[in-house]
């Protein structure tokens, strides 16, 4: 018995050891470990690009893709970088570039980009220059995603509204009020004109858009100081509050406006082009997009970019292979990325092409490119512009939208906390 056990144990260990060693096997092509943080369903489109690239360059390059959530991607990158086990290429958000390049995690890509024949003049300048931090290029933009207004055509028709979104504050309020209805007759509305989340990052994106329309920013021009305790911020927050509690055209404490929009109980939402792919697949939803209304003086809407970055310390041959894939995605796949994933192309010739003009839902986003507002570039990006409850902006908007704090006190506290973070470098 005893011997039999020992033999069995050795066998088990041997099998485990074999399993481990087989992972060390490497093939001849240059392997690029790629982290894809893009959410579903667009992530699959990027995976298709990976497959196509691998087939095209079989034997020469191989992209090994790992899909993960954005949160995981950012935290895992730091740990794996520290352990010397970082990926060779990964998807990234434009606003995170300042923080991660300052930490010294990202490779300066100027030389690699030039070598791969990616030329800045072919791309929309906001996106191209938005990926340069302190004079160095740390990323290649894949797309841009400004907000625009999605509207439900069926509900618009029922309410006797035109087949377009509202253009200014007056029209927006008129449309929103006409769309808000009590269809069941219980005295409470069960259809709303507009919706946005009370929690997370969306409220401060909305606020940044509204302030941008007033020609204001939430930071000083040198990005060193928070400028929140102003009449403009208070007015914009009051408007956001009133939509819910005074005009009652937004459901109270909404957490899933996209879901409500898909079910046809909300007439309008502000959202990025990433939702196109999902809305398109929703049966019975007849929707269209329209530029973000001008609530205040000028056009302006929050937005961001997906980019591709290469961490430092990757071998030159691997870096070049990674850049070949980047070039493939941005030079050859821009249109497909727009068509299948809904993200806005940034190559000027694609934006101007008849083919792209056919993508009706994308046009409102394309029209917003020149007045899109990025988050201000700060090293403390993740502590402020996140959905986390510890962000001073999240605390400010949540406490106002839950009716727990009055607006004047909330903006003052947020400004103090924001400044403490900016000063505590």
């Amino acid at each position: 018995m005893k011997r039999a056990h020992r033999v069995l144990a050795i066998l088990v260990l041997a099998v485990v050891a074999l399993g481990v060693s087989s992972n060390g096997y490497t093939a001849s092509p240059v392997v690029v470990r790629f982290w894809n943080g893009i959410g579903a369903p667009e992530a699959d489109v990027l995976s298709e690009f990976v497959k196509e690239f691998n087939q095209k360059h079989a034997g020469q390059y191989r992209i090994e893709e790992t899909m993960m959530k954005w949160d995981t991607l950012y935290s895992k990158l730091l740990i794996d970088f520290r352990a010397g086990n970082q990926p060779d290429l990964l998807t990234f958000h434009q606003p995170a570039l300042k923080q991660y390049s300052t930490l010294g995690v990202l490779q300066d890509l100027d030389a690699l980009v030039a070598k791969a024949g990616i030329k800045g003049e072919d791309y929309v300048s906001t996106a191209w220059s938005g990926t340069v931090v302190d004079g160095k290029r740390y990323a290649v933009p894949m797309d841009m995603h400004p907000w625009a207004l999605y509207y439900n055509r069926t509900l618009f028709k029922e309410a006797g509204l035109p087949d377009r979104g509202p253009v200014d504050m007056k029209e927006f309020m008129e449309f929103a009020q006409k769309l808000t209805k009590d269809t069941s007759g219980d005295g409470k509305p069960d259809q709303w004109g507009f919706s946005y989340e009370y929690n997370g990052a969306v409220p401060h994106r909305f606020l940044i858009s509204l302030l941008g329309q007033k020609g204001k920013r939430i930071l000083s021009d040198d990005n060193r100081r928070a400028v929140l305790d102003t009449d403009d911020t208070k007015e914009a927050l009051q408007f956001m509050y009133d939509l819910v509690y005074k005009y009652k055209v937004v459901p109270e404490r909404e957490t899933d406006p996209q879901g409500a929009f898909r079910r046809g109980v909300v007439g309008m939402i502000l959202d990025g082009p990433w939702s196109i792919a999902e809305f398109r697949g929703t049966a019975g939803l007849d929707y269209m997009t329209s530029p973000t209304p001008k609530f205040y003086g000028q056009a302006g809407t929050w937005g961001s970019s997906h980019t591709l970055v290469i961490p430092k310390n990757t071998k030159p041959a691997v870096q070049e292979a990674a850049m070949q894939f980047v070039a493939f995605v941005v030079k050859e796949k821009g249109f497909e990325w727009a068509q299948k994933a809904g993200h806005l192309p940034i190559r000027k010739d694609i934006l101007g092409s008849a083919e792209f003009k056919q993508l009706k839902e994308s046009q409102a986003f394309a029209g917003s490119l020149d007045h899109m507002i990025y988050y201000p570039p700060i090293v403390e990006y993740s502590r402020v512009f996140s959905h986390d409850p510890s962000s001073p902006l999240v605390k400010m908007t949540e406490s106002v939208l839950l009716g727990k704090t009055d607006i004047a006190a909330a903006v003052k506290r947020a400004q103090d906390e924001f400044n403490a973070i900016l000063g505590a470098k």
Partner: protein
Amino acid sequence: MDGQSTLHDGCDRRNGTSHRSVRRRNTWAYVMVGPYLVSVTLFFVVPFILAVPVSLTNWSIIGRPSFVGLDNYIRLFNDSSVLQALWNTVRYVLMQVPSLMVIGLGLALLLNTRLKGRTLARVVVVMPYVVNVVVMGIIWRWMFDPNFGIINHYLRRLGLSGSWWLTDTSTSMLSIVIANWWWSAGFNTVVYLAGLQGIPRELYEAAAVDGATGWVAFRHVTLPCLRPVTFYVLLMDTITSFQLFGEPFVMTQGGPLGSTTTLTYKIYNSAFIELKLGYASAISVLFLAVISALVLLQSRVVKSGID
């Protein structure tokens, strides 16, 4: 416990275990447990010991840590968000653990009777437990949606006004507790069911001879025999409840206004969002101190009950 009530507890587990095979079994047991012990040491014990020196530094993961002495600990006790997280965690444990134990035992008792469709019922009770936390979180977030969720929909049909559930600071944690009744009561049920089936039938027969059936038998045979199982369930539930993270991460992102930010969430947040590894380690050390003190206290109290 006095001698009188010991006599009343009909559960005596001193049975003759054969000592001959114990040593051989032990060797084999070490082989089986070995890999687990190695991984626990490597990925839990060692990192934890390392957390103590790290807690005395400022460190952003990248770059060199700089020594700051006890600064992190001093800041900790003045940081209202850490104290809020500690309170949230304790509040959650106090709500979750007793309720989960009662539900687990109740379901186990029900499933231990000769009920029609018992096997199916057992499967159904355990099924939610195998669901991933993300799936569970998303399902319950939908159900709890104050405007469009199914729970408020039916409450309103019954003429009730419904609740804000996850979107109010006063009900957000309770909502997570309720979701967990569905999600993890199955585990307690299985453990209790095993415990119930391990109670010798003779004890009930003997009790019946003495006229003890129903509640009396439950009180004096079932409950005392389940003591070790109850202790195990209490310990496991307390430890896992203290580590609450996935549910708020998926369902509320720690909100609203930090009302579901637990200590583990705060540690994650400090380490990976704020990139303050030293501070996060200091919270971890505090967390371990709290958890160890409680487990020690708990094991004392319960052990004195078992002996």
